[in-house]
């Protein structure tokens, strides 16, 4: 079973280019202008996606500390801030790239909500808020599908190696490694998108804030 998990992780990593929509090549074909509205939209999408990634990744590892809530909040806030910053820059410099992320997020939300709806029909205590929650997780994963797939593969690979090597490494730790991989991969993709949006020569916008140090 442990070897099967390792094989699954490798297969997941290798297969993502075959199905993942968008990506750097796709984004380059989009329009490369930004706007203040797109920057605000990017901030919202990035923050939402980042926060969901942060909280999801924290659920298992933070449950091993008595400061469980504090730990999870720190993860949520950090990831949300990374998403917020990256999303703002993506929107400000390249609204086409943001459009790809939003499209992926919408597809992810729909897929997640569909799963949530099935769960609602099967699991006694599940309600509409849980459908919304699975949708929100799908949204976070779908906004950066390449990063999600790569991160999942890398996380499961590392987790599987640790699982094979360390007897005290438990099955939930392997699941946690996968979720942390998803968060790390997706957030990295947000940051990479922001850098590429800037370097792709977008017209950019002036962000209406001034700072005094």
């Amino acid at each position, binding site marked *: 079973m442990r070897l099967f998990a390792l094989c699954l992780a490798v297969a997941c990593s290798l297969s993502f280019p075959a199905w993942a929509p968008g990506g750097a090549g796709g984004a380059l074909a989009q329009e490369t202008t930004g706007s203040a509205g797109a920057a*605000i939209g990017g901030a919202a999408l990035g923050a939402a996606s980042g926060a*969901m990634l942060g909280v999801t990744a924290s659920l298992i590892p933070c449950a091993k500390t008595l*400061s469980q809530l504090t730990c999870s909040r720190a993860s949520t806030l950090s990831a949300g801030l990374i998403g917020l910053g990256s999303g703002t820059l993506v929107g400000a410099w390249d609204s086409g790239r943001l459009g790809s992320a939003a499209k992926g997020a919408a597809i992810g939300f729909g897929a997640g909500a569909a799963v949530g709806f099935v769960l609602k029909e099967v699991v*006694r205590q599940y309600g509409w808020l849980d459908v919304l929650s699975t949708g929100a997780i799908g949204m976070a994963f779908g906004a950066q599908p390449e990063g999600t797939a790569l991160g999942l593969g890398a996380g499961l690979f590392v987790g599987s190696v640790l699982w094979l090597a360390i007897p005290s490494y438990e099955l939930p730790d392997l699941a946690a490694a996968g979720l942390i991989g998803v968060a790390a991969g997706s957030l990295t993709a947000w940051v990479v998108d922001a850098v590429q949006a800037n370097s792709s020569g977008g017209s950019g916008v002036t962000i209406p804030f001034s700072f005094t140090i």
Partner: protein
Amino acid sequence: MMRRVGVFGAGATALLSAACATSAGMRLGPADRECPGRDAAAEGEAITWYEPSGPSDAESNERWCETVGPAVVETLPRASFPRFGPRDSIAVVAWNILIGGGDVPLFLEEVLGYECHTRSPAQNAGFSHFVLLIQEAHRRSEAIPDVPESFKFPPRIVPEPPSEGWLDIVELADTCGLALFYVPSQRNGPQTVDGEREDKGNAILSTLPLEDLVAIALPFEAGRKVAVAATIGGSSGTRLRVTSVHLDIASTLYRTLKTANTARLRQSAGLIQALALIETGGVTSGLVNVGSGETDCGDLPGPIATVAAGDFNTWSAGESAIDQMRLCFPDSPPWDGEPTYGAFPTDFIFVRRAADGRVAYVDGSQRRIEKRYGSDHQARIAWLRLSE
């Protein structure tokens, strides 16, 4: 497109703002509730209730309580057992018996050398007194109310019955001649079978009389959970409080995200607070901010030695709920690395001594029982010395 993005942003903002503090506080339950699950079947047997002080928890628990039947109390064992000697030890067993699927009579015979017979239970050589802390006990009764099926009942669990029949907890106590304290937590499905319905919950079966009966409705997560506690006496007035506990396996996804997966940590915090209230005679505990690193064990060591054992539904022995229990039960047997539910370490026995130090865990005596006896959980057993 921007409108769609804005919707995501609003959702995220709502979720982040909802990630508010999660807390646990307990109080002495009022005595004038109508809920049938609060009544003892035997008249004159008072049960002291403790419950969460939060209105949301209390409301949910009350709603679920209305679907179950009364508690069952048989404080004295029907069989004759030898007096508890000054050098005797008592076996404490924690076992989730899967709605009667676990073959308790066979377990007692093979593990504890006790044969259940209605009239004359037989104690084999080397017999020792024991207390079984049971989870997922079930009871069939006409007294369980008929509730509209619109209520979201847990689905009915029907195990593969043991070879000698599918006994409920009342029949089991009767057959084995044991003292019984059973408090249902929730229904076992909505069905009515031959005019009877089923509920399920935690129970204590004992060869020694049960006193000071306490029911602790835990903070509500996915379903109502009621821990049951009672005291048993050794020789020379030595007393031990035993508690049967079953925590939730998971909350809803929304609640898991909102509370950062602190469901079991919050329930164990509620249990610890209620046990502290029992010891101090207090009415209301303070609020503990669950997950902030704060733990309030009450005054340790307390006036009476306490065992809290059962199915904690944990996926790791390093989970915060277990760490918290270990902090508040510092005399617990060490973790032996043996899972009891498939690959998962769900079942634990926690111990704390009293100030007089007369009750103590017998070092090295805890072990996992290898056979499942028809349950989906393996039992744990530990021995405690109740000295003069």
